[in-house]
């Protein structure tokens, strides 16, 4: 295989694996803020137990997210040196901003989140939770801004030619708010909310089916369902906006989404289908003129098709078509699920509808799949460009790197990530089997460390209910 193919496989593999984790952290962060906020508001220790439990799971996810994220940061330089030199003036500033403003925030406060239970007051702990949640969102902002600049470059000019050519920044805010960044950022963040909230929904539904931790699982389910329902509806909006943006800024990608070849003709909207890359025909179920309607609000308006692009400027059509349609189908399913569950909750029948809880247990995989597939269609749809219209992927490689070296690192990372994934699943399962502690841990910690700022009646005078509850546990022992 060529260095280009190998380097692309490696990047795709490492980024796809990495992308399992940050969306979970972002979504869980929001759920954690709500849970711990409920604890501060009600002083009901059940919410503290829930927060502690989900922070332990958050830490596991966050740890792997960081470990695999550092690889990404260095991979630009190791495998894509020409690209790095070309975009560093712009892309680098977004990465540097991510490190300075986002990553340091979340990693710094994570220590307090995990180990600070007995060292800081509940309010300071809640503040740390908010900072970690915000930090993980700031990370997403800068990374998606940088990626969006690759899709729709703005605020730059090209300086130099040949080997020394590069993009230099002319307008920082035009770069940050490039034509696609707001659409894509909102779409990605809301997708992350879905990933995180569906994990909580899945685990809580499983406990409810097993009849374990019933009260706290119902509480957790309700919090996560609120996030998931709002996020699901939000995705309709952000998804539609994103697609309209693609129509304006990246017509080749939009045409690939729907397998639309004719250079200028009304375009169909497919529900599902198969694109024959040779005959340029799509077989499937479609709304005639549907794409024209979505883009121009007119069933007969022409949409620019792939035939108007040179063959070497077209993305792989069927792959983009399939990933895009699967993402949309999953998104619609998620909206249906959350609306149904919200309706049943309102009618007071949700906890009795066991089949739906069963569906939610497995539904944790759906937002993960949709997030992955969405990125595949976005990134493969940009091909053959690494920076749309400016730099081809084939020209972006490191010239000093050989196929053997990329093989070596690809095999190495495949093995390490396989091990990491197996350990992740094993430990996640173990934590879930164990579940939130039913009070023992709270009383144990107040028992063990008299200096605790949380359950010590002398210090935590601002928390009479919590300390009272903890004390009664101690006397129960």
């Amino acid at each position, binding site marked *: 295989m060529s260095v280009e193919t190998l380097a692309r496989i490696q990047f795709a593999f490492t980024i796809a694996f990495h992308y399992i984790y940050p969306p979970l952290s972002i979504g869980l962060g929001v759920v954690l803020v709500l849970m711990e906020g409920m604890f501060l508001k009600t002083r009901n220790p059940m919410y503290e137990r829930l927060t502690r439990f989900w922070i332990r799971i958050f830490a596991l996810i966050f740890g792997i997210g960081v470990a695999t994220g550092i690889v990404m940061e260095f991979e630009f330089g190791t495998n894509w040196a020409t690209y790095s030199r070309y975009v560093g003036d712009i892309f680098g500033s977004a990465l540097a901003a991510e490190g300075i403003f986002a990553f340091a925030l979340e990693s710094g406060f994570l220590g307090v989140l995990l180990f600070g239970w007995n060292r800081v007051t509940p309010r300071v702990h809640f503040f740390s939770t908010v900072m970690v949640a915000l930090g993980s969102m700031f990370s997403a902002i800068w990374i998606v801004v940088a990626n969006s600049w690759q899709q729709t470059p703005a605020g730059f000019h090209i300086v130099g030619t040949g080997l020394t050519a*590069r993009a230099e920044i002319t307008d920082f805010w035009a770069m940050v708010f490039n034509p696609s960044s707001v659409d894509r950022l909102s779409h990605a963040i809301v997708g992350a909310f879905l990933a995180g909230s569906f994990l909580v929904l899945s685990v809580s539904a499983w406990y409810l089916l097993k009849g374990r931790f019933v009260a706290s699982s119902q509480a957790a389910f309700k919090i996560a369902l609120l996030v998931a329902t709002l996020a699901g509806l939000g995705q309709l909006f952000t998804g539609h906006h994103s697609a309209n943006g693609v129509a304006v800024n990246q017509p080749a990608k939009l045409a690939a989404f729907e397998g639309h070849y004719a250079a200028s003709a009304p375009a169909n909207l497919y529900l599902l289908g198969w694109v024959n890359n040779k005959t340029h025909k799509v077989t499937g179920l479609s709304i005639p003129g549907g794409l024209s309607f979505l883009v121009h609000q007119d069933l007969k308006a022409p949409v620019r098709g792939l035939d108007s692009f040179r063959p070497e400027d077209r993305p792989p059509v069927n792959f983009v078509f399939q990933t895009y349609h699967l993402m949309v189908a999953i998104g619609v399913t998620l909206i249906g699920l959350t609306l149904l569950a919200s309706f049943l909750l309102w009618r007071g029948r949700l906890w009795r509808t066991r089949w739906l809880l069963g569906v939610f247990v497995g539904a944790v995989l759906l937002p993960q799949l949709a997030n992955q597939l969405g990125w595949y269609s976005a990134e493969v749809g940009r091909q053959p460009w690494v920076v749309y219209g400016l730099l081809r992927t084939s020209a972006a490689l490191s010239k000093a790197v050989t196929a053997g070296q990329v093989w070596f690192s690809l095999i190495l990372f495949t093995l390490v990530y396989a091990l990491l994934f197996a350990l992740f699943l094993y430990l996640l399962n173990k934590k879930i089997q164990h579940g939130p502690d039913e009070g023992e841990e709270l009383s144990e910690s107040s028992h063990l460390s008299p200096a605790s700022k949380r359950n010590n009646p002398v210090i935590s005078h601002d928390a009479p209910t919590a300390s009272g509850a903890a004390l009664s546990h101690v006397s129960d022992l």
Partner: protein
Amino acid sequence: MYQTFNSVAMTTILGLDLAVWWFLVVGAVFTGYAVLDGFDLGAGAIHMLFRKEASRRVALNAIGPVWDGNEVWLVIGGGTLFAGFPVVYGTVFSAFYVPFMLFLVALIFRAISIEFRSKEPMAWWRKMWDWSYSVASIVVALSLGVVLGNLIQGLPIGADREFHGTWLSFLNPYALLVGLTTVALFAQHGAVYLLLKTENRIYARLTLIVRQTLRVFTGLYLLLSVATLWYVPHMLAVFRQQPWLFAVPLLTLALVLAIGRFLKRRRYFPAFVCSGSIAALLLLTVAAGLFPVLVRSTLNPAWNLTVQNSASSPKSLSIMLTMAAIGIPLVATYTSFVFWVFRGKVRLDSASY
């Protein structure tokens, strides 16, 4: 790229141009990484010298709440290098392809060993992650040192700004010596940190270990100084031109001697400040010796990658300097907050590893 440089007429702040300021930022961030994650890596390097399960647990929890925040300095360092000197970032990282891949894998193993070790009670499980943690910490420190050692000597960089060598040449004696010295320095730094954070059995053991680490580091440091005079004389040019710069290595030597005295009097905090300062001063010595070159070409001095010819545009640098001016004090503030929350000796509780 030179055209824009001239057209903006070399914006300067306090007489230094923006690229030099950004060089100082990148240097400060990597120094922060060496000082902060240095003690985590050092604690990992000497981890297997603790025999008892309880001691190992205390040692891990001593770095538990801070190591992740410390590692962030590396992420910021990579980002600032990419942003300010994209040419250096691309060239160096693709040149050191194999060592960097091993470094990244070791970094992953360091992280997951800390996270996973406490999740199961079985002795074999804990022993396995203890070994993995310790070996990974040593590999991270060693590979950083080897990269530094090669940067000091220079790389075969061509006119095309690409590396024209083979990766096996990285394993030369001088670079390996720099690598070993880095491991020893971090081990020393980590041992002093652990002395600050522990009590009882492990503390008693550390008072013995720290003497060994200091002895090994001092020996390697002197050997490295002689080897540098012998093998990489170009590092000395600037010291001959600006003799006052000799203050830096002299101060380093004074601090090495001071550590011994502080340790004898059981004054561990000043000893910790000394070992952190040594890491910073050694990096400063390297930076002073190379400046304004960032990557020296062994093929032709005209092909050196310098602060000037590999920097981002002045516009980009001024934006990022603004970000750094706002962001780095913030990072320092909450880093200090976290260290303050977890001040004092380690106490294990239900939240510990």
